[in-house]
């Protein structure tokens, strides 16, 4: 019988759904009617159809009438209770304020955790928004495209970011979809600029450039002085940035019409002053000279010769009529390139990249922006979650304090909804306070954070609409989440249980709280492990044996005009006290090389070798090891001799033992291999050692006349380098006046190659500290509570003879267990992430077990210290005090 009646019941889910929107007072009768009708329908048209009809009927019950009645909590027996009563709401605020001030330590811990989390989140939001909004301030950003060339060379491809002078006009003439274009040519770094009327003052400028006359109407940079249509029209005119104008002439108005001298020669008249480019602009400028001047400038005139579409020195931007035409630009360029170079190799592609994406595709100053943009939002989310769960955890843990209040409120007539509202209002209040504190924290700390990231962010970007919107979103999400769990949990208390005094002290769901603690510590441990491994990789980078002895080496690049006096220059430097040895190479160490194509032995395939021209001292001075030393120690006397490294030998299919006297073509000239050196890292450890060819030249002035070279000076240990550098500067300046003296310590250069990892390491350390801080605040709060709750127990234990150590370990045991679980959970996660990170490096440090052990030890130690802060105090307390008070 029961079985049968069970069979003809309407679908359970529909019933459940029904109960969710029926008013409680009507539920019984309505459901009864529904069931009765269902039974009738089962008989009339069978079970299946009746069930469908039932479900349909349920949906029909979802009407405003019932919903309203349910939400208003309106009953026939009681007058309706308004949830949003002004008097009650002001009461909620009052109670919230009282609780805030009564439990000062606790509130402070709670608010501080949330504030730190929110502050860090805001900084990350600021950074991410800044990066994603790069160049978006231009009016036509959607339609502006930047063009670059992709050159394929076997497996590798090379990107050329600039085009020839003729490219843009040719393109516009033959394609209607190109509305206009701008060409920009950057000046050299350290361009010498002097005031015409005060030439004794020398300025070295890095952000000097030449631009087409429509630069200021094409882009949306603002001009403070001058008309955007005319400022760059004539040759030998120039626009300064506000800062530069002030630097030279004191004020922007003063700068107009003044004359500046470029590299001690050409004069430019200032026709306009522009506002500084926003920090989220990929185009930066201090001085912009008109492109029309280039034709008549001795040192630049070569750049405008090209009459065809090809790569060149001009960064080229097109304004398209329709943003979708980007592919047409690519095709159009390729076609024009082919007409211009009928015999050219078919290995080039042109790419039109929207202006808004140029920043993310480039790799400024060794920061892989896109990598950070992937990691940071994730970290921000974690920290936000951490601080919110911390807040929830602490407020629910305190619930037993509020239990009686809730009981009384409910007995007097509060509905569950009004209690929920109360706790939401309370959380909102606390969140507002934390949010303001977090905002201040963000303002104070952001310069430090952005300096670490090596970027600047304009002050007014803080008020960018997207940033404001994200902050508002962050605010609402945190109010919503912070309030949700406490209000749901606390409003569910039954007044009978609570007021009867039977409330379990641990009523606030111990398992959830433990779960949260484990979660927080897992994140902290993951971050500790990550920081340790990143730090270890960094140490590995800086300290592993690369095959080069670069200590005490100073590198001094010199120009071709110095090279004219090379022999005396070198002799003078060599004879200085403190100089041990001097060598010259075409490029400074780690500063680059030429790529020359050659052919492999036997199979005659095309392959490329990195090539650097060096003198005979290079190999011994840098301590490079021979694999197979040259037979004739005077080998460099013969022209066209080369030294290869092992990787090159392998690449060319040669045998080390038989490679000497082999001839290979470098740059289509036969060269003879004189010897083989062991592989060494001629680039940073981010790159695998590839084939390298050292062209050894006899050390004469003629070798360096083209394009200059670089003097590597090995100093004796214990010499005063600053004095030595001063002397070398004097020698250098006696041969060269237009290009300033520069020098680099090789050790610094090595350091700077790992700047990116250095930054990541510092940032991760920062994040780790923040998460540990928040997790510890949570733990501290919980331990304060648990000791408070167990005051009597501790008193009795002490009276019965428990030792201080016994009590401390009793109080710490529970927390330690949680931390241990966290370590177990965190280790594999961290291991996975770090393996992924390390994958990108060809040379990587080992992930040892002791890293995990150390991270575990550190986290246990921190947790123990946090907890003992409170437990020792409790254990030392006089039991008389705790037992006396009742």
């Amino acid at each position, binding site marked *: 019988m029961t079985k049968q009646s069970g069979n003809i019941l309407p679908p359970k889910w529909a019933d459940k759904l029904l109960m969710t929107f029926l008013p409680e007072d*009507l539920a*019984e*009768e*309505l*459901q*009864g*009617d*529904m*069931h*009765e*009708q269902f*039974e*009738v329908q089962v008989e009339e048209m069978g079970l299946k159809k009746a069930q469908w009809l039932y479900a349909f*009927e349920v949906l*029909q*019950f979802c*009407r405003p*009438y*019932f919903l309203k009645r349910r939400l208003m909590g309106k009953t026939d027996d009681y007058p309706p209770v308004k949830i949003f009563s002004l008097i009650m709401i002001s009461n909620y605020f009052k109670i919230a304020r009282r609780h805030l001030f009564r439990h000062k330590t606790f509130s402070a811990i709670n608010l501080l955790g949330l504030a730190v989390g929110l502050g860090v989140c805001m900084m990350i939001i600021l950074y991410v928004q800044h990066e994603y909004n790069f160049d978006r301030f231009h009016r036509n950003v959607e339609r502006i495209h930047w063009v670059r060339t992709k050159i394929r060379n076997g497996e590798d491809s090379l990107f050329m970011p600039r085009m020839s002078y003729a490219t843009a006009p040719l393109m516009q003439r033959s394609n209607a979809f190109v509305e206009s274009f701008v060409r920009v040519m950057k000046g050299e770094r350290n361009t010498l600029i002097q005031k015409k009327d005060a030439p004794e003052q020398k300025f070295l400028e890095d952000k000097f450039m030449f631009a087409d006359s429509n630069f200021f109407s094409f882009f949306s940079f603002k001009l403070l002085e001058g008309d955007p249509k005319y400022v760059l029209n004539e040759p030998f005119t120039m626009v300064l940035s506000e800062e530069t104008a002030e630097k030279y002439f004191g004020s922007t108005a003063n700068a107009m019409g003044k004359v500046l001298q470029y590299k001690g020669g050409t004069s430019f008249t200032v026709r306009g002053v522009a506002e500084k480019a926003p920090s989220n602009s990929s185009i930066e400028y201090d001085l912009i000279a008109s492109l029309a001047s280039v034709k008549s400038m001795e040192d630049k005139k070569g750049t405008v010769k090209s009459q065809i579409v090809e790569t060149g020195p001009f960064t080229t931007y097109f304004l398209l009529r329709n943003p979708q035409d980007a592919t047409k630009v690519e095709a159009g360029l390729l076609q024009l390139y082919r007409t211009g170079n009928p015999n050219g190799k078919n290995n080039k592609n042109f790419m039109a990249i929207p202006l808004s994406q140029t920043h993310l595709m480039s790799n400024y100053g060794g920061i892989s922006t896109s990598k950070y943009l992937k990691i940071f939002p994730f970290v921000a989310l974690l920290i936000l979650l951490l601080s919110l769960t911390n807040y929830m955890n602490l407020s629910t843990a305190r619930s037993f304090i509020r239990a009686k209040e809730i009981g009384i409120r409910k007995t007097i007539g509060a509905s569950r909804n009004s209690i929920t509202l109360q706790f939401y209002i309370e959380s909102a209040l606390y969140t507002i306070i934390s949010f303001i504190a977090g905002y201040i924290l963000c303002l104070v700390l952001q310069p430090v954070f952005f300096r670490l990231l090596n970027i600047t962010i304009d002050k007014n970007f803080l008020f960018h609409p997207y940033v404001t919107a994200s902050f508002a979103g962050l605010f609402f999400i945190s109010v919503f989440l912070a309030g949700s769990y406490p209000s749901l949990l606390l409003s569910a208390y039954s007044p009978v249980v609570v007021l009867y005094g039977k409330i379990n002290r641990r009523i606030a769901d111990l398992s959830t709280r433990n779960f949260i603690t484990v979660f927080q510590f897992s994140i902290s441990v993951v971050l500790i492990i990550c920081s340790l491994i990143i730090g270890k990789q960094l140490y590995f980078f800086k300290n592993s044996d690369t095959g080069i002895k670069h200590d005490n080496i100073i590198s001094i690049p010199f120009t071709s005009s110095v090279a004219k006096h090379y022999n005396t220059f070198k002799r003078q430097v060599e004879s200085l006290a403190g100089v041990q040895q001097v060598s010259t190479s075409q490029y400074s160490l780690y500063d680059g090389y030429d790529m020359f194509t050659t052919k492999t032995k036997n199979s005659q395939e095309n392959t490329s070798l990195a090539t650097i021209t060096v003198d005979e001292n290079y190999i011994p001075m840098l301590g490079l090891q021979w694999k197979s030393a040259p037979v004739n120690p005077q080998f460099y006397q013969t022209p066209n001799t080369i030294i290869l490294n092992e990787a090159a030998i392998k690449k060319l299919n040669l045998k080390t033992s038989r490679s000497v006297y082999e001839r290979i073509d470098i740059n289509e000239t036969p060269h003879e291999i004189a010897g083989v050196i062991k592989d060494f890292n001629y680039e940073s450890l981010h790159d695998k050692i590839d084939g390298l060819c050292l062209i050894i030249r006899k050390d004469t002035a003629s070798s360096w006349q083209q394009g200059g070279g670089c003097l590597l000076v090995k100093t004796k240990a214990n010499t005063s380098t600053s004095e030595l550098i001063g002397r070398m500067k004097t020698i250098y300046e006696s041969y060269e006046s237009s290009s300033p003296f520069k020098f680099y310590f090789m050790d610094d250069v090595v350091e700077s190659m790992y700047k990116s990892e250095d930054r990541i390491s510092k940032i991760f350390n920062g994040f780790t500290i923040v998460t540990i801080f928040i997790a510890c605040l949570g733990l501290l709060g919980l331990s304060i509570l648990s000791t408070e709750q167990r005051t009597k127990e501790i008193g009795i234990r002490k009276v019965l003879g428990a030792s201080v150590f016994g009590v401390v370990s009793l109080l710490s045991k529970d927390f330690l267990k949680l931390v241990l679980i966290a370590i177990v959970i965190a280790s594999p996660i961290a291991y996975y992430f770090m393996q992924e990170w390390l994958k990108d490096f060809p040379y990587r440090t080992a992930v040892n077990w002791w890293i995990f052990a150390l991270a575990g030890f550190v986290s246990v130690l921190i947790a123990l210290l946090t907890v003992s802060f409170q437990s020792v105090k409790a254990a030392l307390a006089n039991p008389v005090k705790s037992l006396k008070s009742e």
Partner: protein
Amino acid sequence: MGRPYLGEFEELVLLTVAVLEGGAYGVAIASELKKRTDRIISLSGVHIALYRLEEKGFVKSVLGGATNERGGRRKRLFNITALGKRTLDEMRDIRNELWTSIPKLSFS
């Protein structure tokens, strides 16, 4: 008009309550209406009409005792009030008057 508004469907429900004389509750009213009209009658519609009628004072209700049927759930039984009866009377009178004053009654 002094009395509350009475919709067409509400009027039908009110009439059915009167017809069923004390035995009127959701399902009974719905099936009665289904029988007599050719409409699709939804339980929820009937109930809303009933509650509205009660709010307007045309019917009064009482919860019946629990029985073994419908899983032991009680029914709410509706009865027409004096006000409800008077309103129905009034409405019929108005209608009759209007019908009789149509000039040429043709039933073609």
